[in-house]
């Protein structure tokens, strides 16, 4: 079972069973924030977002159009609010100045104020994606099956701000079918990325033209998850229904990096805003954490099929503690000379993967530096000293 108490939660995952799960990545532990008895598949979580920029409260949208808020301070849920009474499935809920903006699969996008509909947009039938612009928060994008990408300003509701135009007919002069499954706004620009059920990834430039500026295809299965790379604006992370996860360079039109280890369809992908880490989840019931720098990966079994994912933008809370511990311990070792066996026995094994690699990397760097200049920076010095001490002790131990 998962640990009962985890102080820091880095990732939140919504499952098909309607449970919200919180994960601590550095400890590789997780817990159910809902009661496990309340499993109900009609309450599948379809949307997760932060209530505000402080990233403390999570807004949860379920398939049956109910919205609840989870408060991280008290670890409780607020009363659920039902948005709309008609028969439809919720596609997404976002917050705009504290008010809900909801979208259902029949295409109704509504702004709610105090439980009343303030304004309503009809985005057409079979909506699959509903996305908010992270910088201009009143701008939303919708798209779906035979429903082209439309961009709306929720405050000016009559007509969409932008409607995409289908690409030109193919080489047989046949119409290319439309099926927008994901959309992501590129922050601070007029560009938007979309992925389709016909395995295309496209980039639209709202200033340039209504047709996509860049268009590429990936694999041969519907793309179900899309995320931007914060470092490179030409790169996107995509996941499809057979569990292929890749970083695509949309300008070059080919995959840059393909990740292994996923068994089932990917429902959600998120690239961490600062760390070189890609988090994905899906029908194989695992949360996968892949590193983009090396081949390391981590997976956590979460028992239910997972549908959405929300990352905290800073994961360093726990990591810093660990690092301090490491430093302190090495110093202790270097100070004492007597009972080394006891110290070795008491030493904790530091299990965070990233840590080890950091040390390795720093060691490597250090070696290079030594070769070049013979100088070492303070941090490396400490570590290397402590390492040397360790080595010496080992040797002496063997002799004794």
């Amino acid at each position, binding site marked *: 079972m998962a640990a009962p108490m985890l102080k820091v939660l880095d990732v939140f995952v919504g499952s098909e*069973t309607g449970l919200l799960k919180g994960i601590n990545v550095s400890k590789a532990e997780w817990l159910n924030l809902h009661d496990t008895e309340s499993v109900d598949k009609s309450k599948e979580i379809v949307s997760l977002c932060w209530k505000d920029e402080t990233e403390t409260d999570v807004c949860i949208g379920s398939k049956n159009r109910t919205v609840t808020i989870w408060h991280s301070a008290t670890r409780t849920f607020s009363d659920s609010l039902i948005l709309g009474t008609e028969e439809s499935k919720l596609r997404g809920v976002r917050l705009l100045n504290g008010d809900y903006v909801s979208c259902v699969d029949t295409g109704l996008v509504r702004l709610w104020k105090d439980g009343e509909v303030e304004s309503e947009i009809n985005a057409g039938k079979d909506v699959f994606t509903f996305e908010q612009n992270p910088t201009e928060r009143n701008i939303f994008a919708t798209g779906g099956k035979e429903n082209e990408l439309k961009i709306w300003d929720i405050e000016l509701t009559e007509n969409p701000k932008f409607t995409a135009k289908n690409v030109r007919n193919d080489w047989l002069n046949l119409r290319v079918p439309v099926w927008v499954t994901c959309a992501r706004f590129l922050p601070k620009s007029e560009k938007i990325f979309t992925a389709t059920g016909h395995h295309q990834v496209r980039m639209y430039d709202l200033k340039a033209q209504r047709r996509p500026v860049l268009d590429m295809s990936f694999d041969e299965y519907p793309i179900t998850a899309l995320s931007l790379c914060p470092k490179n604006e030409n790169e996107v992370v995509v996941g499809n229904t057979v569990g292929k996860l890749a970083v695509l360079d949309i300008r070059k039109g080919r995959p840059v990096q393909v990740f292994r280890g996923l068994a089932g369809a990917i429902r959600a992908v998120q690239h961490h805003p600062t760390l070189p880490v890609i988090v994905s989840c899906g029908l194989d019931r695992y949360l996968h954490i892949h590193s983009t720098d090396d081949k390391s990966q981590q997976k956590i079994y979460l028992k239910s099929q997972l549908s959405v994912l929300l990352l905290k933008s800073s994961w360093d809370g726990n990591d810093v503690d660990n690092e301090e511990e490491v430093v302190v311990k090495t110093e202790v070792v270097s100070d004492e000379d007597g009972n080394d066996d006891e110290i070795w026995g008491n030493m904790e094994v530091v299990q965070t993967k990233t840590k080890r690699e950091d040390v390795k990397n720093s060691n490597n760097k250090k070696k290079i530096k030594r070769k070049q200049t013979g100088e070492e920076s303070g941090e490396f010095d400490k570590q290397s000293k402590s390492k040397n001490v360790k080595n010496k002790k080992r040797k002496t131990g063997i002799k004794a």
Partner: protein
Amino acid sequence: MAPKKMKVENVEEENQKDVTEDVQTIPKPNISRIKNKILRNEMYKKLRVEKRKAKLKEKQRKKKEAESMGEEAPPKQVPKTIESMRVKDETMVNKEDTEVMLDEAQDELATYFNRETSPQILITTCDRPCLRTNKFCKELKLTIPNSEIKYRRGLDLKKIIPQAKERGYTDIIIVNEDRKEPNGLVITHLPEGPTLHFKLSSVRLTTEIKRVGEMSKHKPELILNNFGTRLGHSVGRVFASLFPHDPQFQGRRVVTFHNQRDFIFFRHHRYVFRNNKRVGLKDLGPRFTLKLRSLQKGTFDSKYGEYEWVHKRKEMETSRRKFSL
């Protein structure tokens, strides 16, 4: 022949050791060096008999020792097999896990397990099946009660599925063939999935099994072995939902799906009470082996469907001791 030779050489080495211990004995000839084939074979046979005898003796000696020591005897050694050395799987289902149990209770197959529906199965094949596939289907029909065979007539599966739903079928089984040999099996549960795709191999029809028994029309009992992981549970539930509730025990018919190293062995038996203590089994056939290729959410849609699990050989078969079912 290489391994045999190796064995012989090993024996030879041992013999040489013996020689070094008491110098008087004449070393035994190296059998693999004998150039006369007949002589070599004879010698080898003799050696084999000797070895077998030695092994038996050792066994008896150990048994005696264990008996004489009574309770203090060293515990019997359990052989290390691939299964017993299995890599620990964290998805193993625990009966006390409320989340998994409730999740399972609400899946697409829940209507069968709540006894709201009873199975009604449609068996069909790929287009223009050959003789052997047809025979296989007929035998499948006999083993699974409430099943019907329909000729495919070149119809699309995606067109068949809505019609089958209308007519109240709960499952469709499609047998695929290659080179006149059945080689694939697709099971689609209706109305909402899931769809399983299996590789089908080692098919032995009733006519090809020696001393086969005659099938009766009783509802069979079902045995599902080793479907322990979460994926295994999903697969096992689909198999269970193919057979009707309430088996007729007087028929003594048993259908077994035995999972071993991710291969699922299908067997069909009738048990016979020989006397008060002994029970015998009569194979009724057919026999075949399945291996899961993919588990897809929803009814059959290989192009746009979402896969819950896909077998990826290069990624998953990294360890011989790792299994997914």
